[in-house]
């Protein structure tokens, strides 16, 4: 995640985040609806593979950010090609 935020991520990193989340909670993870994206809300409860009840809670913000605000992440990944490496720090 910090790789993506630092502008050094790739599209594979986003997939990996979702996939790690899926190995914590298989199937669809609950999130809110979004009219702009045409997404219906996924209701609770989620399924769990983990022994730890904190696991799904940690994944919840990651999942909803990635599902509902995906374009912002993608912009971050694409944008780094247009920003010189030295300027990344200044842009942040």
């Amino acid at each position: 995640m910090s790789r993506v935020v630092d502008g050094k991520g790739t599209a594979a990193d986003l997939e990996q985040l979702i996939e790690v989340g899926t190995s914590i909670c298989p199937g669809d993870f609950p999130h809110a609806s979004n009219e702009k994206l045409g997404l219906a809300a996924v209701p609770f409860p989620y399924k769990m593979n983990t022994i730890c009840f904190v696991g799904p809670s940690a994944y919840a913000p990651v999942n909803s950010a990635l599902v509902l605000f995906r374009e912002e992440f993608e912009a971050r990944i694409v944008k780094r090609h247009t920003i010189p490496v030295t300027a990344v720090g200044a842009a942040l």
Partner: protein
Amino acid sequence: MTTTEPNIEVEIPLDPNAITMSINGKSVAARKGELIIAAADRSGDYIPRFCYHPRMSSVGMCRQCLVEVEGPRGPMMVVSCMTSVGEGQIVRTETEQVKRAQEGIVELLLANHPLDCPVCDKGGECPLQDQAFSHGPGESRFIEEKRHYEKPIPISDLVLLDRERCILCDRCTRFADEVAGDALIQFTSRGNNTQIQTFPDEPFSSYFSGNTVQICPVGALTAQPYRFKARPWDLAKIESTCTTCSVGCRITLESSRDEMLRYQGVDSDPVNHGWLCDKGRFNFESIKSNQRIENPMVRSDGDLVATSWSVALSSAASLIAQAIKDGGPQSVAILGGARGTNEDAYAWARLAQSLGISNVDAQFDDGLPTSLFGYAQATIDEAAHATTVLLLSPDLKEELPILYVRLRDASEKKRSKLIEFVPKQTGLTRYAWKSASYEPGRQVSVIQQTLTDPAVAAQIAQGSVVVVVGRANLAENDSFTMAALDAVLAIAP
């Protein structure tokens, strides 16, 4: 060991606990309360696992054994080592979802595993290695730095701990707590920082610490005598019996290049359940002692001369034959040892018989008279399943550690009640239902007093009774022990 006859009812009714379930489309017969993973093992559908061990309680720590079970809300992912079977249950162990979950878990386990397999003692017999190949994704996407710890740290004189390799399966800690009864290693911290630790000032000085090395599913716990000595695929393995004490645990002797390197416990249901005590597991180092006699020697002209086995055996045979010829079979006697196996004893008894020698003698290890054989015998299994176990004097934790493990288990699982008569506190005192101490030599009166107590008498009347006899002290005359045994048998026949 001596016993009164255990009550075994020979009657096999139709099992009310039998159920039928389906695993991967196959119909499997199982018993109520059994775990899915155990039923799948019998049906031949291997479910990968790290933390599950059939001899210990399940915790579901590693999540590797996830399977799909048909539930009211569609297929559910459940941990097969924590879920018991049910009538008509439909289990699938090889679906796409199961595969994804198992691969995900292997990948996460390997994210912080150092993958130093080429120098790891476990490499080649490592469940993590095997299952990373059979049920893993094949490659990792984690490019970050792995977690680092100081390694290895000695947690006792015999066991070393490598926390980088550890996958936190809870096997060693469960063993120490549940089976050995001395929880000297435990998890510390939480989350990403969870690690196995001993108490700060206490080493892992368990009598059974070697077992944790054997059951560790990775190379996190290694045994000092075996470290970097061999690779598992180079070891020549022979199954045998441990002769350190009279329990006679099943072991495999593992050697490489004509050097004995380690003993491993074999899961033998009537005896040791796969466990060994450290005394038995690590005493092979005495084989390498330079004081050991390595060749047969024959005394000629007052000097011992090393020779070959064939020469030694033929000269022994000719001496015995000469003696029998000169003085008849009565002039020869055979003394047997207490440390041999039953098969050894049978072999030399046959030899004596075929030579017509009737002067034979042998002793128990602790010098009790052989008239003990005149009492009814109990097996270790019968002792561990008896309603009441009476312990006369021996400190089992010191003398017969695996019998201690079995009886402790019986007492912890509320199968048996232990009543011990001891001159001092023993390892089992904590688990004994009644512990009566006596002054050496006064066993009989203490036993009579305790056993005539109404509560104790009611307990003894309830079912089978096994008596474990031993000598608390070699300085004590064995007649006291025998008198104590007679006193017990007079009250509880």
